[in-house]
């Protein structure tokens, strides 16, 4: 049975998060939020080609996990990957430029939203195939151990993804090889438009970890500090050679599965959406920070403002960037 992590850790020392951690989490979340809401607006304005799976609502997960990682720790991500990339430190300019399909983008304009990556930041890529990133993270963890490094790999996936073979095989592979992989399930309650109850009988995805002999923990995915604590524990465990572990973060996406438009099918009730929005992860952290004096409102507002400026600049950079040259169509198909 999965362990349920309370928001307050049992260990009092663990509650002494420095103001630094809170501010770090806050900043990562704000960056994601603004990156995504601006991207959504650009999409609605018809300025971005392709698909857009927004991460808004789930920021506490990416921020909480990534704040527990080093640059040399590796992550694999999903179709809903912007939040992971931003939180792992991928440049906003390169990300927007990629969404615009510009040659200055993170993929030189070749990949778009679903393939953003940054090898220098340990971002091993978003992925358009559900579950496909799971075994790739296992391979990254294998490489780390093989080379005698103590970095870990984290793989992000949704509730729906746990029904696909690659998840199952990857989890068992990591377990039997004892690899330093942290499995982070962002359970937002839906796979596209299908509720969790329509795709699996379990209430807690974390209970699937037992099938691999893997420990697991459930956290409030709207609580960045709770996610961070759970992630820090799992990462420390993996780094110490104790093998893989699964974290299930219960969260919610505030936009539609894809794009920003209203839904043609009322698969979520207004009340449900409102309830979750009332627990906006950024609001929660800000309220706590102000209440316990970790940060002032002005300091928090300053983060928003600085980020807004940075984002505006990044969008301007992207818009001013050149398009790829069709003459280079065959660039990077092969190495060497």
């Amino acid at each position, binding site marked *: 049975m999965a362990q349920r992590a309370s928001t307050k850790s049992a260990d009092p020392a663990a509650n002494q998060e420095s103001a630094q951690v809170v501010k770090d989490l806050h900043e990562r979340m704000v960056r994601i939020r603004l990156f995504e809401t601006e991207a959504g607006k650009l999409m609605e304005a018809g300025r971005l080609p*392709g698909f857009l799976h927004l991460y808004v609502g789930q920021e506490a997960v990416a921020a909480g996990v990534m704040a527990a990682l080093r640059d040399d720790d590796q992550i694999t991500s999903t179709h809903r990957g912007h939040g992971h990339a931003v939180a792992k430190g991928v440049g906003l300019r390169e990300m927007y430029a990629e969404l615009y*399909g510009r040659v200055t983008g993170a*993929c030189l304009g070749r990949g778009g939203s679903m*393939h953003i990556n940054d090898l220098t930041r340990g971002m091993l890529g978003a992925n358009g195939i559900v579950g496909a990133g799971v075994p790739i993270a296992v391979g990254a963890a294998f490489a780390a151990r093989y080379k005698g490094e103590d970095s870990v790999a984290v793989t992000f996936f949704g509730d729906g993804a746990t029904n696909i073979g690659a998840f199952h095989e990857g989890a068992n592979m990591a377990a039997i090889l004892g690899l330093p992989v942290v499995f982070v399930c962002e359970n937002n309650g839906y*796979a*596209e438009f*299908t509720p969790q109850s329509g795709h699996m009988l379990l209430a807690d995805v974390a209970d699937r970890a037992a099938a691999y002999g893997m420990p697991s923990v459930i956290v409030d995915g709207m609580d960045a500090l709770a996610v961070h604590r759970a992630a820090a524990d799992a990462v420390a465990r993996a780094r110490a050679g104790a093998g893989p572990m699964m974290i299930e973060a219960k969260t919610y996406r505030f936009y539609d599965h894809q794009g920003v438009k209203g839904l043609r099918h009322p698969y979520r009730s207004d009340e449900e959406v409102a309830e979750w929005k009332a627990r906006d992860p950024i609001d929660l952290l800000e309220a706590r920070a102000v209440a316990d004096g970790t940060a002032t409102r002005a300091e928090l507002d300053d983060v928003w403002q600085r980020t807004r400026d940075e984002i505006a600049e990044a969008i301007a950079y992207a818009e001013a960037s050149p398009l790829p040259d069709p003459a280079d169509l065959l660039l990077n198909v092969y190495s060497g």
Partner: protein
Amino acid sequence: MTTMTEAPAAAPGTARKLTYVKAFNEGLAQAMREDENVFVAGEDVAGYGGVFRMFDNLLDEFGPRRMIDTPISEAALVGLGVGAAARGLRPVVDLMFMDFIGVCLDQIVNQAAKMKYMFGGALSVPLTITTASGAGLGAAAQHSQSLEAWLAHVPGLKVVMPSDAYTAKGLTVSAIRDDNPVVVMLNKVLLGSTGEVPEEIYGIPLGQAHTARQGSDVTVIALGRMVGEALAAADELAAQGVEIEVIDPRTVQPLDTETMFASVRRTNRVLVVHEAVTFGGLGAEIAAQIQDAAFDHLDAPVLRIGAPFSPVPFSPVLEKAYVPDRARIAEGCRRLLERS
């Protein structure tokens, strides 16, 4: 199925126009009405009606017994179809994007396609697999492929590539009525295009090519969305006095090569065009067969136009250069005619 209602190869004069996706939807609904054993399974096909709206309204009419939303488990989804087909149902399973076929190809190729043969003919597998293929929406390398060459290489499978609303309906009906596993490759860019579609149910014979336009100078064999591009090129060329014949194979496995051979023997020049990468694409098989069957009739080598040898790029400026279009087809025809 033995009773087949076959419509004429070309759309008869009917005023009614439907979009490609609605034509597909109507054919599917009519096939479901015709045969109680037809059901649909896939991700978000029931409650949502499919991410491409392919299955709109079907849940309302047919209910949750015949419209099944499944988890993201394509191998089990296709396997569900194989097992149900082996037990006498006529499943329609939807793979959403054709690119996802890599996670369930075993069930398609080693199970569905081979079962009848390996089992000594003991059963049939009347399974229909629907999926959306093709580039043009900025969906990038993992959501834009045209993989018909893989499937057409597999004995036991049939593969159809509707090129317009009329064929989207008729080929779907025939796929469902067929007693073999058939993959229906819809084209994403065509989904919203409109065309004349008869209201009654009709099938289009599998394995029968259609001459979409007659001409005497060059034969253009075009797959799926490229049929429309070829017809547009034909208009442009006609204005310059060049008459091209456009052949739409409709089914790529089995492939109606006789219609192609007959055309080439008249035109003596042939171009094959598809969205898939040229190397190893269906154009290779078509070219190989034509150079064999019409060797003495060719005034120029069979010309192939397909995508360059790279994954599908994201940036629209690259994607546009990547996918063949009417301009490249017209240019190819001119090149063929220049060759003495």
